[in-house]
């Protein structure tokens, strides 16, 4: 739990969240959940090995019915590991929830949710190549954006540097260190 923003800090939360909380709680009976409140959506976090179970429950529960995976991404919290973030939406019920899974740097591995939302396929591939998180059971674990032979560089990790900028101005400038 790296981010635990104080709720009173935010003034522009949209709507009343009690209803969606009860829906999510009903759907996820028996699954350990940590609650947070974000700016627009409610946030829950589940354990790594329960993500598939929780996803299925969220999708199949009649009241929750989160059938649409809006986005799947990860955040590198450096020393505190990484978090994988699922933004879910229900097209029929028109409500949102954000699901988070926290991973420690030692085991960057979690089960795939492609069986629940096929939309996760490419998004998980992107997260895998950009953050080095393994999605076990992924049907097509190739690189998505980067060349296929690159498998040890993870550009979106915080310790990955930006490329050097090629400076064209140096040539013919005629200044050296002492003038600066």
């Amino acid at each position, binding site marked *: 739990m790296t981010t635990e923003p104080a709720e009173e800090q935010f003034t522009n939360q949209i709507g009343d969240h009690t209803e969606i909380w009860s829906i999510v709680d009903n759907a996820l009976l028996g699954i350990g959940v940590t609650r947070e409140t974000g700016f627009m959506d409610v946030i829950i976090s589940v354990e790594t090995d329960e993500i598939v179970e929780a996803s299925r429950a969220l999708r199949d529960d009649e009241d929750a019915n989160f059938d649409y995976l809006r986005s799947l991404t990860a955040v590198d919290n450096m020393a505190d590991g990484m978090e994988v973030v699922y933004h879910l939406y229900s097209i029929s019920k*028109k409500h949102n929830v954000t699901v988070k899974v926290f991973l420690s740097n030692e085991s960057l591995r979690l089960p795939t949710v492609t069986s629940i939302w096929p939309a996760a396929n490419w998004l998980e591939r992107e997260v895998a190549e950009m953050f080095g998180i393994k999605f076990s059971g992924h049907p097509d674990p190739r690189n998505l954006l980067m060349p296929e032979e690159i498998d040890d560089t993870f550009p979106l990790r915080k310790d990955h540097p930006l490329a050097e900028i090629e400076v064209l101005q140096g040539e013919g400038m005629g200044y050296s260190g002492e003038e600066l």
Partner: protein
Amino acid sequence: MVEVLSQTSDRSAEFETQDLLLNVGPQHPSTHGVFRMVMTVDGEVVRDVIPYIGYLHRGAEKLCETMDFRQGIGFMDRTEYLAAFNAELSYVMAVEALADLEVPERAQWIRMILSELNRLSSHFMFLGAFGVDTGVFGTPFIYAWREREALIDLFEEVSGDRMMYAYFRPGGVAWDVPINFVDRVKEVLKSSAQGIDDFDSLLSENEIFLARTQGVGAISAERAIALGMSGPSLRASGVDMDIRRDEPYLKYDELEWDVITGDHGDVFDRYYCRVLEMRESIKIISQCLDRLAPGPILPEKMPRMLRTPPGEVYLRTEAPRGEYGVYMVSRGGNRPYRCKVRSSCLSNLQALHELTVGEYVADAIIILGSIDIVLSEVDR
């Protein structure tokens, strides 16, 4: 009649055949940028298709993490160059949500007008490119560019740039619109309406166009939702989802307009949904123009360097191609800790395999055209 025309005999039993790998792209007239797909074709029928993306990957997300909030706007423009106002809108609204900024009334109306105009110009681009994909020699393309030119001229007069506007800022818009803005928009809307009429009579009823597009690349509502499609491509399957209405942002809930949905989810519905959506856009803009009143366009107290408290937000808007979301995490300070762009094109493109397999080679091209990808948004 169709059954009679498209019957083909089952040849596989008679001959031993070998499938042919057909590489389309990255340089190909109909891939709309640098996109590559490898098709396995059996005669003229596509048996498998493997898309390859990433040729235009520039790391906009990583760059945004090293830029302050104002500098990031320029990179957002470049993730979606055909609808840069919509891309900026998601980004600045995410920053506003994090920094708790109140956007003045006038700025909101200006933002709405410009993003809807941008939707028009982007859909014109789609119509043009799609018309050429179906094989009309250049006519729709030039019609589209003619109308888009008028729109882009207007954008240039407002923001100073033709494609990379950098005009929306956290808190409002950078500077006010020109004095004759309302008249100019009306003028442009008139020409756009004429352009839509041109397209309607050129393509929408043409028998060959209908024969080519109807029943091709159909996808059911369930599969479209499961594959994460969004925007007109999703609505064409009959899914009634429009973020502008379902989770209203700006002032969309104060206006009268309709959400267009299709029934069949095929190429033609994806095309025709967009055409009708353009007419709705015109309706929205005309209503916005009536409500545009003088006033400030940035909040009273704007800090010179914007800083946000820690927090995170997933801000989504309805861009021309679908849901354009910005997931922004702030750990305090003047720059985002993580800025993820949820690209509608990426998710729509995922459906390509399902849409294409079993169709003809020629259909593969128009299916790709009909989901209207912008490769810079796919790759970011």
